[in-house]
Structures are given as structure tokens and as C-alpha cells.
């Protein structure tokens, strides 16, 4: 440091001296006294330079000793590295903690639709507002997890309603086990727990009709209010996934399945399981297969003798999900037992297959779905959209940017049951449901 300061000091002193000495005009007219004064100053300056130079040498002589002393006290490099690593981790953890406390970010999805029919309620036509979906997942600690999905959506009557579609609080023991309590998507098949409510997420414009949400024409219990244990066990060539759940039994209210969010009145319950294996690597990379089933005691909203049916479902599914392909097949078989009126067992089936190709320019897909629902089964007969049907659809998705997409679909749907009015619900004709119809649909979906 001192050495650095001395260098310019020397230069300045020499500069002053040289400048002084190089003033010929002034020197010419100077007196001898002035010359003597200059000579004296020059001598003083030279002495000062010599003194400073000696001091610098003295200090430089001490420097190596100091360095050696410092080197002798240097810590073990590995220990130093470990300390640095620890400090880095602490800084990271602190920064993360500070950010976690900075507030809860709000994210979600929204969509609007145009078509010659409403994509869920075909008796309506034109433009329709789909849903505004707010997704919240507050972090409550290392192991306490929570999730809420609050949706504003247009219902069958055309009015906007609010629905707490999912509300779960859970405890994560580890990757192998998490317990959730609350309202969740019932773990069956692939679509119901993979694609959720944000329509932007799915390549297809809408879910298959029979596995749509209860208030959008679906006939299966898409939501359960209860307890859900889920986890994954990793294997060398993939992972094994499991789900076990139990909750309030469903109730049919006004022709629509309700998951009894506030608790049920009759102690009826649903219980089920799903087992899956997701391949990772090899020829089966991207493939997931699974089986699932549940049993559900379903009531309706009649004031007397509301117990309706024991719904028993078994199903299987397969998904091939890669950078290039998205193929989904789900199949369900129902063996329901009447608990009210004439006893008996009814068998129904429903399945769909969807094949999609993920091109760089978009995702074209084709889907066929079929539901053969026994109308002597009160579970299907009492539901407004419980008719058997088939639907074939061809669609495409284009991504405008990372947060928005536009989808188109043409579809043909035919209801294959004649559903006259019952003492519980009006006929399909009275509701305005066409027996068969062709659709041209467009959807603008975003995430935020």
C-alpha cells in the first residue's frame, strides 16, 4: 500500500523539480539567491526520496515473513471448503425462507369457448365463459402441505357459480407416503388426477364426457371428501404408485352427483384404491399402466328412503406419454346393486381411447368414447347426463406462447338410450338434450 503511494509521490516531486528546472525564461532572470534556494530545495527533495525509499525497502523486507506466518496458520483446505459449503447452504436456506414469507403467489387457469354447442351442455350454443381457476398451494413447512383450487365457472343453468373444487391439507412423511385430508380428485384412471381443472394443461379441448366433473356432465364421482394416502416407490426401471382413499358417500342431488363436502347425513361411504406402474427407461419408457376400483354407497335427495345403490367400479388404464406421443386409454366396469325398490345387480361399461401426436407446430388428436350405461340402474338413470352414448372427436391444439393455447375440435355425439321422464327427472327432450349432434368447438385457454 505504502509502496503504491510512494511511486506517484516520487513522480510528483521529480515532476515539480523538473518543471521548475525547465523554466528557462524564469531562470534567465532569476537572481543567484533564487538559484541557491532552488538548489537547497532540490537537496531536500532528494533526501526525502532516499528516506522514503529506505522505508519501502524495510516494509518490503517484512512482507515475506508476514506471508509465511499467514501460510503457517492456514486452515485445512478441505475443512475450509466444507465451511464454505455450509455457509452457502445456510444462505440458500435463509433466502428461501425469506422468499417463502413474502406472500402467497396466486396462479391459475382460465378459458373461453365458442361453438355451435356448449362443450358441456349441448342445449346451449354460441360463446361461453368456461372457468376462472385460482390455484393456491401455500407452503406450511417442510412436511405440511396444502392445496386449494377455487373456481368460478358457468353451470348447467348458465349462471356463474363458485366451487372449491379441491381443498386438501396433508402431511408428507417422505416421498413414499403423503396423507391428505379434504376434498380431492378421486384417484381412478389417469385423467382425473393428472389433468385436473385447468383446461390449458390438457392437449384435448375437454375431458371425455363420462369422466368429466360432476357438474359438467360426468357420471362418475370425480371428487371425494375424505382421507387419501398416496405415494411412490422407486424401482430400477420405474416407479410403483399407490393410492388408498375413503370418504363420504356420494349423493345425487337434482340429477347431479354431489360429493357431500359438508359431510353426509346417512353415514354412507366410498372406499377405493389405485395401483400403477410408471416405466422409466427401455422400450417401455413413458408408459404407465394401472388398475383401480372403488365401492360407494350412493343416496339421492329424496326425503324418504334416500338410500339408492351400491356402486362398485373396477377399471384399468394405460398411458403412453412421451415428447412425441400422448395416448390414453381408460376402461371402467360397473356392477351396481340396487338398495332401494326392486333388488338386483346392474352392469354397465364405459371406456375411451385418445391418441395424440406432439408435433412442433401443434398437437392433433383423435378420440373415441363409449358409455353403455344400464338405465335400469338408478345410479345412471337418475343423473341428468346419465344416458349411454358414443362420441368420436378430432381436434388440434396450438400453443400461442408458453402461457396460452387455442384448441379446435369437431365431434359427433349420439345418445343411444331413450330416456322418458321419470318421477325424479324430466326426459332428455324436455331438458333440451339432442339425441345426436355434431359440434364445432374452439377454445382459448390460458394459465397465469
Amino acid at each position, binding site marked *: 500500500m505504502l509502496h503504491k503511494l510512494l511511486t506517484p509521490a516520487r513522480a510528483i516531486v521529480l515532476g515539480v523539480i523538473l518543471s521548475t528546472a525547465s523554466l528557462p525564461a524564469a531562470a534567465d532572470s532569476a537572481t543567484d539567491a533564487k538559484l541557491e534556494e532552488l538548489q537547497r530545495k532540490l537537496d531536500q527533495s532528494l533526501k526525502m526520496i532516499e528516506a522514503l525509499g529506505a522505508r519501502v525497502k524495510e516494509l518490503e523486507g517484512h512482507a515475506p515473513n508476514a506471508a509465511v506466518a499467514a501460510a503457517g496458520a492456514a486452515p485445512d483446505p478441505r475443512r475450509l471448503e466444507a465451511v464454505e459449503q455450509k455457509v452457502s*447452504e445456510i444462505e440458500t436456506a435463509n433466502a428461501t425462507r425469506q422468499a417463502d414469507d413474502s406472500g402467497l403467489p396466486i396462479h391459475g387457469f382460465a378459458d373461453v369457448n365458442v361453438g355451435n354447442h356448449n362443450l358441456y351442455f349441448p342445449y346451449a350454443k354460441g360463446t361461453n365463459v368456461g372457468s376462472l381457476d385460482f390455484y393456491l398451494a401455500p407452503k406450511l413447512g417442510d412436511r405440511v402441505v396444502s392445496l386449494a383450487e377455487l373456481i368460478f365457472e358457468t353451470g348447467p343453468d348458465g349462471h356463474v357459480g363458485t366451487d372449491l373444487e379441491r381443498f386438501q391439507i396433508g402431511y408428507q412423511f417422505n416421498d413414499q407416503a403423503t396423507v391428505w385430508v379434504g376434498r380431492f380428485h378421486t384417484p381412478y384412471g389417469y385423467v382425473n388426477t393428472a389433468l385436473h381443472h385447468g383446461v390449458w394443461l390438457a392437449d384435448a379441448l375437454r375431458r371425455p364426457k363420462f369422466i368429466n366433473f360432476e357438474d359438467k356432465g360426468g357420471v362418475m364421482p370425480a371428487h371425494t371428501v375424505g382421507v387419501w394416502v398416496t405415494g411412490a416407490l422407486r424401482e430400477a426401471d420405474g416407479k410403483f404408485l399407490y393410492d388408498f382413499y375413503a370418504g363420504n358417500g356420494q349423493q345425487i342431488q337434482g340429477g347431479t352427483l354431489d360429493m357431500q363436502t359438508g359431510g353426509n347425513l346417512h353415514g354412507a361411504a366410498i372406499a377405493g384404491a389405485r395401483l400403477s406402474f410408471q416405466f422409466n427407461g427401455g422400450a417401455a419408457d413413458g408408459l404407465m399402466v394401472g388398475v383401480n376400483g372403488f365401492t360407494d354407497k350412493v343416496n339421492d335427495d329424496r326425503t324418504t328412503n334416500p338410500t339408492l345403490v351400491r356402486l362398485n367400479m373396477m377399471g384399468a388404464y394405460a398411458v403412453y406419454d412421451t*415428447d412425441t406421443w400422448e395416448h390414453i386409454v381408460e376402461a371402467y366396469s360397473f356392477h351396481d346393486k340396487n338398495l332401494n325398490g326392486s333388488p338386483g345387480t346392474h352392469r354397465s361399461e364405459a371406456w375411451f381411447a385418445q391418441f395424440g401426436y406432439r408435433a*412442433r407446430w401443434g398437437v392433433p388428436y383423435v378420440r373415441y368414447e363409449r358409455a353403455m350405461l344400464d338405465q335400469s340402474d338408478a345410479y345412471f338413470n337418475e343423473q341428468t347426463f346419465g344416458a349411454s352414448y358414443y362420441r368420436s372427436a378430432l381436434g388440434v391444439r396450438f400453443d400461442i406462447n408458453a402461457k396460452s393455447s387455442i384448441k379446435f375440435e369437431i365431434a359427433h355425439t349420439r345418445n343411444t338410450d331413450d330416456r322418458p321422464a321419470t318421477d325424479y327427472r324430466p326426459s332428455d327432450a324436455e331438458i333440451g338434450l339432442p339425441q345426436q349432434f355434431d359440434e364445432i368447438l374452439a377454445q382459448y385457454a390460458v394459465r397465469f
Partner: protein
Amino acid sequence: MFKGRCTLKDDTGKRVSLHRSAMMCCVAALTLLAVWCPAEDLRGSVNLGELPQGWHDDRSRDLALAGLRGHRVILTMAYASCHRLCPATMDEFKRMQRVVDARGEIVDFVIVGYDPKNDSPAVWHQYRLSRGLNRDNWHFLSGSHAATLQLARQLGFPFWTYDEHVMHEPRAVIFDTRGFQRAVLGSRNSRWSDAL
């Protein structure tokens, strides 16, 4: 000729050299130039050494980001089950690799997993095998949840999770050979290789 231009006569008729004045002017001009055009102002630029540590590559080997200094580094974040944006990012990286190969330049491509819970080293290893991303200068990294969040914040990778899905954007950061952040690439860049 030049000497003549730099020589004037004063009132007394004596020649006064202007060399000294010219040199002073040059020094002043250079000083002004230095003030107006600083060589490189790296203040505020993130350095690889300032990023979180504790990363493991797809063979479970420790990798220090600071250790990659000496080559340019192009870093992105991805998750292995992403089939929409991440494949496009990998395509851009492959295109950039071809460009730097043509120049004979060595560049390290770093892909940090958004989802450490699911994107283990084994999963990333399979990812690169199934996609033929076998170059040694491509590093697929997994870290702790805290380190992942911190790195995303420091480098400006916004993301959120929707159950098993990671909502994110196409983005990459280029670091120079000294480890300083030099450029950010995103959806506004039609071809990322143009930024090299």
C-alpha cells in the same frame, strides 16, 4: 510537416513547443473516454460462483457450477416429464451445440431440474439416454429443493407447480468464460443460437 504544425511563435517571437500541450490533451481525452466507455461493468451480474452449491449430475457426481468457469456456460431449467416446452429447449440447445462445434469452441450446457423430488440423477440419466443427449459437456443436475428455488430466483426462472406439473417458461442464461452472466434467452429469441 507534422512538426511545423505543432510549432507556434509567442509574442516575443520565440518558438513554443506544443508537444506538451498536445500530450495533455491526449491524456484528458483518454480519461474522458474511459469515463464514458468503461471496459466492462460487471456490477450486478450474477456469477456462477455466487449460485447455490451442492449439485449432482446424472451419474450422481458432485458438480460445482463455479468449476465450469473457463468455458462459456449456457444454463436452463427443465423437468424430465415435461413434454411441451422442455423438448423445444433441448432442440435449441442442440442447435447451439452445432454452432459452437463449428467454431471449435467448448461450451458447457447445464440443465438444472425444477423438480428434485421426481428428477433424480437416475431419471436424468435415463432422460439423456432416451434422447441421445450423450455429450460430456451437457450436465443434467439435481439439487436440494432449497438450492433449486434459490437458483431459480437468482437467475430469474419463474415457475410454480400444479400437482405433478411444473409451470415454467422457455429460458436460458449464458455465462462468459469468467462465469459472469452475459445474456438471457427466452421466447422472444426466435433462434437461441443467434445469441452465441
